[in-house]
């Protein structure tokens, strides 16, 4: 197993898929000459040339639409949004064209396209550039959505996304690009729609995705010292959701804490909390807790910026609430 960064794992997935399938190409702002705003596409221009690694103008709706058209006629575009904050401009192409084309054409058009880029709060970026839009995409039937938290998942899920015949949104995380982890040397695909149990436990199910998964792991270690056994589940895929894994866990623990760094209203986290409450009502010993960001725009002040987001302490406190220890 090689140790590599999240950024390198994504680059390896792109490289392998471009080498494997000539219909795969990468398009976005600064992906070619500049090697990518976050260096995910480093070296790809040199290797695959300007026809397959294409710099675009700052026109998210335009180049996303070009990608949708290319996918419709048989290519496999990977559209890089510099961040999901800018992807809002492209919402119409994703929601109304990419997500609906297969349905509205009666299955005649596939839509093998990947939209990817960093999502979620980072640091010192203030209200407009530090926010999670997971629920924007997870809300839409016709899309698939993945949110890897570790290099191995970033590698395996991006490969699966590129090979998928449906549109897949990949939520990367700016704060995770530099984090390292083991990635299998052999080519590996992580199936879309499977959660990963990172740590087994008996007292509470900690359910999260993307960056806060790491807080959950830290919280679980702290809780272990206090004799509380938390099971940590990384959803990895937000659409489709691996509810079976969640059900199985909650059947064992009778308690769930969902952690989502997005705002609390109509979020992926609130939806998961609802499904568990609804489908496993008789097995719950406490209301499902949701640890989310506060329902406010991201403050620029760093102390406040940290305060409004989920963290280890908030997760531990929620765990103690569902265990009736606090």
């Amino acid at each position, binding site marked *: 197993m090689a140790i590599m960064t999240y950024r390198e794992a994504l680059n390896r997935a792109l490289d392998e898929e471009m080498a494997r399938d000539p219909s795969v190409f990468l398009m976005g702002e600064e992906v070619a000459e500049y090697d990518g705003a976050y260096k995910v596409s480093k070296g790809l221009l040199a290797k695959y040339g300007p026809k397959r690694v294409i710099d675009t103008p700052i026109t998210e709706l335009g180049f996303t639409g070009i990608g949708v058209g290319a996918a419709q006629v048989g290519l496999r575009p990977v559209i890089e949004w510099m961040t999901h904050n800018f992807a809002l401009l492209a919402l119409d192409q994703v929601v109304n064209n990419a997500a609906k084309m297969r349905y509205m054409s009666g299955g005649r058009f596939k839509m093998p396209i990947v939209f990817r880029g960093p999502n979620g709060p980072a640091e010192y970026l203030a209200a407009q550039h530090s926010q999670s839009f997971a629920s924007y995409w997870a809300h839409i039937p016709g899309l698939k959505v993945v949110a890897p938290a570790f290099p191995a998942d970033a590698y395996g899920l991006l490969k699966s996304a590129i090979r998928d015949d449906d549109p897949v949104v990949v939520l990367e995380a700016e704060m995770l690009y530099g984090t390292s982890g083991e990635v299998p040397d052999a080519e590996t695909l992580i199936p879309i729609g499977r959660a990963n149990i990172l740590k087994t436990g008996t007292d509470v199910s900690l359910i999260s995705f993307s960056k806060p998964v790491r807080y959950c792991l830290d919280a679980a270690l702290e809780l272990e010292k206090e004799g509380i056994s938390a099971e940590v589940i990384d959803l990895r895929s937000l659409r489709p959701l691996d509810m079976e894994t969640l059900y199985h866990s909650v059947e064992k623990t*009778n308690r769930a804490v969902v952690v989502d760094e997005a705002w609390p209203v109509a979020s992926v986290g609130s939806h998961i909390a609802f499904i568990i409450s609804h489908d496993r*009502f*008789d*097995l*719950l*010993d*406490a209301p499902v807790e949701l640890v989310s960001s506060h329902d406010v725009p991201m403050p620029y002040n760093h102390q406040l910026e940290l305060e409004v987001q989920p963290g280890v302490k908030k997760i531990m406190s929620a765990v103690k609430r569902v265990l*009736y220890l606090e």
Partner: protein
Amino acid sequence: MAAAVPMLALSPTMTEGTIAAWKYNEGDEIKRGAVLCEVETDKAVMDYEAGAQGTLLKIVAPAGTSVKVGDLIAVIGSKGEDISSILAQATASAAPAGSGPVPPVQALKTELLQSPTPQMSTPPSSTPNNSGTQTPIPQSQAPQEQQPFNGSPSVLGGPSPGKPAPVLQSGVAPSSPLARKLAQQAGLDLRMLQGSGPGGRIVKRDVSRYLESISSRSSKALGAETNKSQSGAYTVSTSEDTIVPVTRLRQTIARRLGESMREAPHFYLRMAIDMEHLINLRNAYNQARKDGFTVSFNAIFMKLAAMAIAKHPQVNSTWMGDHIQIHSRIDVALAVALEEGLVAPVVRDCAHKGIEEIERELRDLISRAKEGNLKPEDYEGATFTISNLGAWGVEEFTAIINPPGSAILALGAIKKEAVVHSNAQGEDSLVIRPMMRATLSSDHRTIDGAVAAAFMKDLAAIWEDPAKALF
């Protein structure tokens, strides 16, 4: 968020309770699980443990007030919080004291036990809408007109911020779905439980603890039968078996005596005591009194036991783990059998009280025990206990030590026996004497065999010749 603290059903048959004493004042910080107040139920005085945490904002029912199960007794929340809505709601929903029939709890329980698919003891949660907002019960469905199990809206409202936790009109605290499911599977009446969750919510651990306490009792009782059932001879339970709900008193007996038997290494010393002088003493005293007042054997036993204990202070002690506490005062309990179970009220400082005074206190304690009016200070902290089964003709028996004491004296019946008597010349003769067998159970952690033997020797000597107590 402020939490309404309702009167809970602290015994299965309780429909209202009287606040005996508040342990905290308004403004005090309350920890969850702390004893908030004492409640006189239909059986005894019970501790009411706080189900919520925070500041005691308001005592709604002062000591001495009688409160129906489910009605507000206090509000716990954060300092300065507005609790007017809770108080207003409590006033609105509280039935006027003494009006309306009390819920037929006993009948319901019977119905529960006989029902092939046991009903939940909480009515189906019938929060009137999904938004979680409060919908007050229309006046036409006021509590006095409601049957607890008819499925009509019987909660005060769904949980919502700033509103009191839901309390069911039947007096059952809220419960988690899992707790309800587990209780249903076990055929358990949730009213037997006290919730440890917020607002007194009954949660999984409350059900588990209760079931554990049951199984530890029944596993011993049913041990033999279980073995047979494994061999296929017959099954343990049949439909004709009676399930007896466990009262708080019985729970207490089970827990305390179980702990005592498990933790205190018991040993037993038995002596036959010639009771002739003591009987004569009692008869002489009772006949001399012209007002009809008589003293019982038990009062005499308690006094004379205390006189023997005074000579052997180690007997009057408690094992404290890292030290032994030898009590300066001799507080003697007497085991009293009630229909509901055993209680052991205590007469304090028996060494310094006359037998008549002991007798008067004993009569008061026993009559209050029969009425269920014993307070904790009436039965807690015995340093020595006497259990007398003589009235049933039992010749001799051994008793389980009543903590925190280290010894208990088990007395059999006084019975005439043929005894070999040796006179001063060393001549033996058979005489008929009223004899009693007294068996001392001692905790070996505090009392060694020789100490117990010396004590029993003096006890027997004093009981055979009470004048020896003076020397």
